[in-house]
């Protein structure tokens, strides 16, 4: 569906690899605002949502080719894994890329992420340079 020519992939090694549409899903205002700003700072165009439903709705908009979903796994009253599962179920395993934000790096979390088709993991609190390199890495390997 949206896999095709995503903006920014013409010069895979330049900064423009990061230009593109991203959805960030976080439960509370503070995290959503900070993550959004962080992504914008590295050159992304961001849609911030606060529920799995909003996330899936945004993805279904064909006018907006989202390339990545940044997904907070530990949200109260919402199962991040379930959202990831639904994204994969409706949109397949190639796009969008899913990068999970997690407070824990325990093996079972990592395992589950792999099972769910998550493409990358970042430990919270998110640092700008970590988000930058993880995004690049995930986008690079997806385009190979």
């Amino acid at each position: 569906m949206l896999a095709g020519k995503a903006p920014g992939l013409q010069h895979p090694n330049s900064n423009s690899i990061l230009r593109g549409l991203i959805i960030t899903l976080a439960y509370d205002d503070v995290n959503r605002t900070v993550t959004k700003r962080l992504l914008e700072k590295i050159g992304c165009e961001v849609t911030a949502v606060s529920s799995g439903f909003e996330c899936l709705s945004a993805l279904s908009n064909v006018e907006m080719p989202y390339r990545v979903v940044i997904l907070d796994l530990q949200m109260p009253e919402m199962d991040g894994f379930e959202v990831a599962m639904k994204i994969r179920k409706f949109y397949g395993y190639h796009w969008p890329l899913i990068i999970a934000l997690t407070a824990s790096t325990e093996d079972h979390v990592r395992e589950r992420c792999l099972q769910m088709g998550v493409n990358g993991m970042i430990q919270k609190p998110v640092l700008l340079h970590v988000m930058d390199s993880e995004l690049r890495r995930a986008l690079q390997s997806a385009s190979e």
Partner: protein
Amino acid sequence: MQRQVALIKQSLFDQGYLDEQFVELEELQDDANPNFVEEVATLYFKDSARLISNIEQALERGSFDFNRLDNYMHQFKGSSTSIGASKVKTECTMFREYCRVGNAEVFSLFRTCDECRCLRTFKQLKKEHATLRKKLEQYFQASK
């Protein structure tokens, strides 16, 4: 004036009220978003005031619902981490630990001890939170 700003900020770090995450926030501030840190702080205090009120109501009810309390604290800890509110974050962690222990506790007498610890920790948390709020207000005021 600049010196006063620097002094306030330094003392916030030295006394452990703020950690490196606050510096990350400052790095997201630029000419296009000159008040980003203050905006996030405002959001944080709005969110956390609501959480404190919810927790107070839950505690007033008399019977400790450790699961619900832990849920609130999870949120509180999450946003406190994002803004670099170090002392508040520590109190949240302690509170959650007492919830975890209290939840597993079989003997009602020991449970009561855990409830006391929760109450005491919560009192401390509110104190740290109020102090941080005041000091940050001073800081932002001095920065104008």
